């Protein structure tokens, strides 16, 4: 199997596999990413920073 075949044998998802992560260790990023997939509407205002490139 070459690399391309290998790539094509799986359809990747960006959902981190949390099955083996203890509940108390689920990271904010993983949690937020998944909530965003499930509830896109609830996260629209959640990013607490201005995203303007030329300021911080």
């Amino acid at each position, binding site marked *: 199997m070459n690399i391309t075949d290998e790539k094509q044998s799986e359809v990747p998802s*960006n*959902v981190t596999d949390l*099955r083996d992560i203890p*509940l108390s260790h689920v990271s904010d990023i993983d949690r937020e990413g*998944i909530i*965003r997939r499930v509830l896109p509407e609830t996260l629209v205002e959640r990013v607490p920073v201005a995203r303007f*490139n030329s300021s911080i």
Partner: protein
Amino acid sequence: MPFRQFVLKVHSRCDLACDHCYVYEHADQSWRSRPAVMSDETAAWAVTRIAEHVKSHGLAQVHVVLHGGEPLLAGHGRLGRLIAELRGGLGGLCALDLRVHTNGVLLDERFLDLFEEHDVRVGVSLDGDRAANDRHRRYADGRSSYDRVIRAVERLRRRPQLYAGLLCTIDVANDPGAVYRALAALEPPRVDFLLPHATWDSPPSRPTPTAYADWLIEIFEIWSAEGRVVPVRMFESILRTSRGAPSLTESLGLEPADLVVIETDGTYEQADSLKVAYEGAPATGLEVFHHDLDAVARHTGVLARQQGLGGLCATCRACPVVDSCGGGLYAHRYRTGSGFANPSVYSADLFKLITYIRRRTAMPTHSVPAATMDALSAGFGDQEDVRCLAAAQRTMRRALLAGVNAHETPTAGWELLTRLDDEHRDAVDAVLDHPYVREWAVRCLRQGGDAGYLANIAGAAAVRAGAVAEIAITAVDGVFHLPTLGAFEAGSATTARLVAEGGRFSLEDLPGAVWHPLRRLTAEGLSVVLEDTDPHRRCHGHPVAGRLTEEEAAAWQRVFAEAWALIESDHPAYASGLRAGLTTLVPLDPPAGGGSASSAARNAFGAVAVAPPADPATLALLLVHEFQHVKLGAVLDLVDLCDPTHTGLYYAPWRRESPRPLEALLQGVYAHLAVTDFWRVRRHRSEDGPGEVQFALWREQTARAIGDLDGSGGLTPLGARFVSGIRRTLEPWLDEPVSGQAAAAAAELAERYRAESAALRR
């Protein structure tokens, strides 16, 4: 979509003459004709426009950035009046995140007092160590700005509540390690590295094809090795978007742009960075005195930056890192002729950097074997395929639970659950696998659920684990429900003390509470929960039946066993998947007007809700139909088949009351593929039944809807592949002979549905 970010250009000139500045040194020279400073009148209009926008869109929070040129050149008095106006005009309406971004040269204690009074956070531009900074950030006469800027940052460090962070424009000639360390030493709450503005017409100078990626990778390595002490917006955004979370900067990710610029003369402009593209690129032709912000939101240039994946060129759309990159900063895609329909001029750098960071920080992610995806897209999927989907659902529920906890103050429920999760993972997983745990979590995150129910989940896990526990549980809709176990009637009580030990349990303070254990429906090789106690099962769009009597439960058992036998014998292609994924059946009330009713809920994987069916064949059909939704919902939890920004609406013959969004149409197609298949087989079993007409009707209607999906332009490449799988299954059925009579009756029904739909829409 409304704007949530407003950049106010309070002064259009600058006291430095940085040679990389996009305001003065690039294509758009509109600053020359603008007033140097924003007048009080213009400022008042700007605030009025933002306030009316906040009100009309019900915005909970907006961000306002005071910017320039150099905003501090506006002076203490004028800036003070503007800030007071902003706080006064918006303060009562929404949360206001107010920032100023400065070169730091003029940042004195008086300014800081003003910012402190009005809670304005301050960001400073600094390109790194002295050598790096002095390469570009100099006065017009060539003097260094470094000492003054450092003095300003030191002042900010003494008022950490005002210190927003540092912004560094990259020059690959600088030493990346020295730049990072110099910035990190100033302890900024956040740093960002900006790619110098460039387009395909005027590309950046680069000694090697990926010089910017290599420069950033060096910093990434130091940053990681030192424990990521200083948040770096660019790196954080790549890490976040790689796991599906939103980006923190407009220069990365697929989030639609919600930013507008108001210039010193009151004109609205689009993204500031567009100044680098061509003369007049950011202009909208609109201004605060005569136009509201909704008019700006309708501007084609603004809309173009809100198209997500659909707004990108074909190269970016097919790119494996597009969810993190998003095609880069909009302005950086410009090329005369093709406009913005190009990858970023930094594409090679972005690709290398994102791929590198992803590899270095890889966490295992879910994936779907291609063979599983093929089987599912064909409409089927066996035990293994459905187990793969179920595995990801466990992840979903764990994340959602953690989400509920993150929004609450720590509770005894969370404490018990996390303890059990460490010591009795199987028991916790068994409870979390209950379909309506996710529905409850989703309700909480939408502010409609009772977070106290987390204790019930933990309590149920304790019972299953045989652990010793005592915890106050919550009544929801009149019951103390323990997922996977059953429910106590609550009467007027709202909380009760659950005591568990060795698998036995009771309510300490309500010893007489009536207990309704959950019951199961069993058939050859299959056992599912007959769920009539969980309050969160009320999510199916139909009234659910209350607790069933023993007779009613027995009637369900009979019809279920027969329906399952029918599925196994006549529709074996669906049996294997159902066996792996169908865990729960929720009885619905019989529909008022007669007929059948059934539903699957996106947030209840494994559950199907059904009203008492007329006969076993009807139940078999409804189970097969609804389980298609269950499977597809789980696929959509993992991957995007439809572009989320696609707004088209389509006629769906199965939901005639209103046109459906693309994803809903796909759901209907997927379900009706199985419905067609069901009748295809069924018509041969009972010659006088509706089978032949139903087969003729649904194969035709499904084929048409597949055509709509194909022609929508809203499927992702994977979505297109999925739909071709559906098509491949359906196509041979279109050639199967049906009687002329049945075909005519089907055509008549199809016509009637269309007419009905048109009448309903009128």
